[in-house]
């Protein structure tokens, strides 16, 4: 037995090494950096909360904006993903699995590719405008499609939708259909059995989908840069610039951990609220 235990430890070693050396250590170091400061382009060890103060005083607008956009995306995507997964599981019969497969194909469509595609679709000389003008619906290109928050929401929703469908379908797949019949037998209509039997069991999938979508949206910077335009300054853009021309790692770090901490708070809030509404009464 002792032999088996040490073998298991040995087998965990490479994986653990990757986790510690390239994830836990970097993230911990990066967290410590958020309490440091930069003097004449050099990092200096310190123990100051200045960076966090700076984040909340100087960057509260993009922070707020980021969370509003991320929340809109996460809520919309979770809802739509749930609808689609529910359809595939309970309403589409034998077409459910092929339809789900089609949707999940786009999971690997390419990150930059998708953003770029939406930029070309929504642009002033882009596909949507030229199609509208060709069909005579408009005379001049509509510039309002691109470089606004809606474009960011659409693009990120498109990217995160398959990511959200996956865990939700996973939890719906585990729901046995016999208890649904049992609920009806005991007097529940379709809405009641949905609320009492389906939702509580789908809850873990919903929370996972919301968390993945929210974190991704809150931490993204390429989408706002490419389709968001100058007025959609999401916090990711500022984080990224601290490591580009501004070289202020402590501030960038403080921003990152602020975003992560607040995101976790939002996710916990979502989990708690939805748990309350799906609890067994």
């Amino acid at each position, binding site marked *: 037995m002792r032999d088996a235990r040490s073998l298991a430890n040995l087998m965990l070693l490479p994986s653990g090494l990757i986790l510690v050396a390239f994830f836990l250590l970097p993230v911990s170091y990066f967290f410590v950096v958020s309490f440091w400061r930069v003097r004449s382009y050099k990092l200096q060890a310190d123990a100051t909360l200045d960076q966090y103060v700076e984040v909340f005083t100087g960057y509260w607008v993009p922070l707020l904006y980021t969370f509003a956009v991320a929340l809109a995306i996460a809520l919309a995507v979770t809802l739509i993903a749930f609808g689609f997964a529910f359809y595939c599981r309970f309403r589409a019969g034998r077409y459910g699995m092929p339809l789900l497969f089609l949707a999940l194909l786009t999971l690997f469509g390419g990150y930059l590719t998708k953003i770029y595609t939406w930029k070309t679709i929504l642009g002033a000389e882009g596909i949507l405008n030229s199609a509208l003008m060709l069909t005579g619906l408009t005379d001049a290109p509509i510039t309002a499609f691109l470089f606004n928050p809606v474009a960011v929401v659409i693009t990120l929703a498109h990217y995160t939708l398959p990511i959200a469908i996956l865990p939700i379908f996973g939890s719906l797949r585990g729901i046995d259909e*016999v208890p649904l019949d049992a*609920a009806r037998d005991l007097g*529940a209509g379709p809405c009641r059995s949905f609320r009492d039997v389906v939702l509580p069991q789908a809850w873990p999938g919903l929370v996972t989908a919301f968390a993945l979508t929210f974190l991704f949206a809150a931490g993204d910077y390429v989408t706002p840069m490419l389709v968001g335009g100058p007025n959609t300054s999401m916090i990711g853009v500022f984080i990224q610039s601290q490591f580009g021309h501004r070289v202020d790692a402590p501030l960038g770090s403080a921003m990152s951990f602020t975003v992560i901490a607040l995101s976790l708070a939002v996710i916990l809030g979502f989990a708690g609220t939805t748990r309350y509404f799906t609890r067994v009464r």
Partner: protein
Amino acid sequence: MGSRIEMGAPRAGRTAAVRAASPLVLLAGVGKSYGAMTAVEPLDLAVGHGEFLAILGPSGCGKTTLLKMIGGFLAPSTGTIRIGGADVTRLGPERRPTNMVFQGYGLFPHMTVAQNVAYGLRLQKRPAGEVAERVAEALRLGALEGFDARPVTALSGGQQQRVAVARALVMRPKVLLLDEPLAALDLKLRKAMQEELRRIHRSIGGTFIFVTHDQEEAMGLASRIVVMERGCIVQDGTPEEIYAEPKTRFVSGFIGEANMLPGRRERGLVRVNGSLCFPDPGPDGPITLMLRPEAARVATGESPVVGIDSLALRGQVRDIVFLGAVTRYAIAIEGGTLLHVTDSDSELRRRLEVGVPVTVHWPQRSHRVIAEA
């Protein structure tokens, strides 16, 4: 017993005449077909108050479809269903006075035992006090006291089965439907649960309809058995009737063990296996002689004594299996057909061994001659 859970029906023990006059469940011409495929041929069935009815048949015979139509999970293609006099043909399960114990139980996996049992009452918006009282009562009936707060996923198969029964019975249905209620349990547990179900049926005096493919289960539980084959009811009667007087070859083969000997009837004379010939009135044509293993006797010696109204066939012992209470002999009769005979006589067992010539005999009244269609 004084259990306060009772089903919305008069107490069992009313006369048969009352039952026949106003059956609780009445199916008239009820059938179900999917396109060209017919699951249940249009059939009639009446179930009286207090009956414990088994619908018995092999898989695919339409028994579960029939039960689901009674419960309201499937709409019949033809016919009407009445429960307690009211036409429920078009009502969904949530509006019928029936409750179901599902195959695999269909418990709510995210709820505790008590939450499962209370669910239907909560939907009816019963006062909390009444819910608690009736749930406690149902749990006591299912011998589940103390399990209230357990998650149902942490229970054993037998316990889950009892939760499913309690969850249905707490609703005080006019009819309790059970779909293969014991199929998921192992043999020992199945025997125990049979007793449990009989006890519950006795103590509340309700009407139970259950579906099974297991003839022993049907015999052990039901007061009346309906045998189905290929969407049709082929026989309807008490377990004793069905065992002793199966109407078709299928029923006799399906219920208990039986020896089947093919033969012909011509002008009131039945001939079986070449040597056997006896009078038996009925239409001419091919017949099957059905003989239960325990109905025949084995005799040794050149000219054994058999009763005057008995039939006898000569043969040779091929196999002897000691089963505890009885011993089973396989005897090859003339023509090579194997007859199985069970006997509890230990003295006989000592005298017989494989290869010994014997005579198999039985009184005429203990076999059945079944005309082949």
